[in-house]
């Protein structure tokens, strides 16, 4: 009798251990994927920033901004920025994300090739917002948002929700590289959520920095400097490495 009980107990514990290992494995894969999505999004924004001269240039070939050429450039940016291989493009989420990038670029083709408009306004935040909006229509259970603290938001449609405010507070207080929550909920359903903070980098400062960073002030005497950036917003006077919000990713049940 004792032997049978011991056998049953050992079977249960083995199954429990297997299930636990399976869940831990599944969770770590989810956490890896969610971080890859955030990095892919960030790499595409970085590529858009690096190519502001090309975006705003007149009368030149811009084929690098479209189709598979664009994705190839995002991959290169990813590899350089994170010193890692680009994630598996067969993953449905990565596949959808790269397809949506191509769609966003294509929907801006007329503007990008409009030689009469010197400043297109196609900056990383605008690209990121369009990407998020298009992805939200794909019904794949993924939401991406580039957000910041409520008082720092320029586009009111990017206002953070409670989870995002909490994540930003934790990231800042504990100086975290990122924050992952596999017990979150979204629209009253179980969700995994991830927040990747973004620190002010030199390229952010041309809009969010001090008037000395404003390209519109270049070559002008200081008395004539404007604190209105090229997009028409007042500059925030932030400096390098200040907290600039971050990328919020949600995986939720459809």
């Amino acid at each position: 009798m004792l032997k049978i009980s011991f056998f049953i107990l050992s079977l249960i514990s083995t199954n429990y251990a297997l299930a636990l290992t399976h869940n831990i494995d599944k969770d770590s894969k989810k956490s890896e994927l969610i971080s890859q999505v955030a990095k892919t999004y960030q790499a595409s924004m970085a590529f858009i920033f690096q190519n502001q001269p090309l975006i705003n240039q007149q009368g030149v070939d811009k084929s690098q901004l479209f189709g598979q050429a664009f994705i190839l450039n995002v991959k290169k940016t990813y590899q350089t920025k994170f010193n890692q291989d680009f994630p598996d493009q067969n993953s449905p989420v990565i596949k959808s994300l790269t397809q949506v990038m191509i769609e966003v670029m294509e929907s801006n083709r007329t503007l990008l090739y409009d030689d009469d408009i010197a400043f297109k306004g196609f900056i990383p935040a605008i690209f990121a917002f369009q990407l998020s909006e298009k992805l939200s229509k794909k019904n794949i259970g993924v939401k991406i948002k580039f957000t910041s603290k409520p008082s720092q938001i320029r586009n009111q449609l990017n206002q953070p929700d409670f989870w995002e405010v909490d994540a930003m507070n934790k990231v800042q207080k504990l100086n975290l590289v990122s924050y992952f929550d596999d017990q979150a909920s979204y629209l009253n359903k179980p969700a995994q959520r991830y927040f990747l903070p973004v620190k002010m980098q030199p390229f952010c400062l041309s809009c969010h920095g001090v008037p000395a960073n404003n390209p519109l002030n270049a070559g002008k005497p200081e008395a004539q400097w404007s604190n209105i950036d090229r997009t028409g917003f007042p500059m925030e006077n932030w400096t390098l490495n200040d907290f600039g919000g971050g990328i919020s990713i949600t995986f939720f049940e459809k």
Partner: protein
Amino acid sequence: MINKYTLIALIILLMPLKAISNSLTVGVIEYPPHIDFKNNIKSEKAYKYVHAVLERKFSDIKYIKYPTKRALAELKKGNIDLLYPIDDPFNKLNHLSNAFFYSTPGLCFKKQNFIPILSATHLFKKLAVGVPSGTKIVPTLEHSQANLINIKGTDSLNRGIELLRLGRLDALFHPNPIKLYNENNPLSKEIACSYFHGYSSEVHIATKPNMDKKTLKIIDNAFSIAQNETSYEYFFTQK
């Protein structure tokens, strides 16, 4: 026991039924750059995508080009089975469960007055913005300090474009500016549009009101499967 004459009679009786269920009439509306009546519609991507889906299920598909008002009347009468691409801001039409694509409203400007980022609403202060009658404007514009001017008349959108060109408006609200601001439209040499991202709406393939459930299910499933495989919006980006 059924004799051969009864069998032949049955087949003849059933034949027209099969033909009816296998034929489909599709109304097509001009919606540049997806469908441009200046081109042969068979070369347009929106036609190619829809036809590739439908031809797997229907052997006889007829496409008829219509102006929007007439197309809607024909659809309501049941003279056409499907109609696309159609904006339906007031949700009056029956349509397939998945959106065909999405359109984003925006503002059009003469190029020298172009505002690229429309979340910068403080730049709208005192701007004379034409709003064609019957269009649903976005809250961002509604709550801004722009001077909204209602453009009346049956052809208010085209009138608005003319007023913009004449410099009598600073900007024109357009429910889907891509129709205007695309490479194939000569107007895009003069006018540029930017978008109210975050306020996109569905563009549909509408179905006639009395479509039988079986046919509707066949079409709806076919499009759902196709869209899951490759969305029309992605297909549109392919050369």
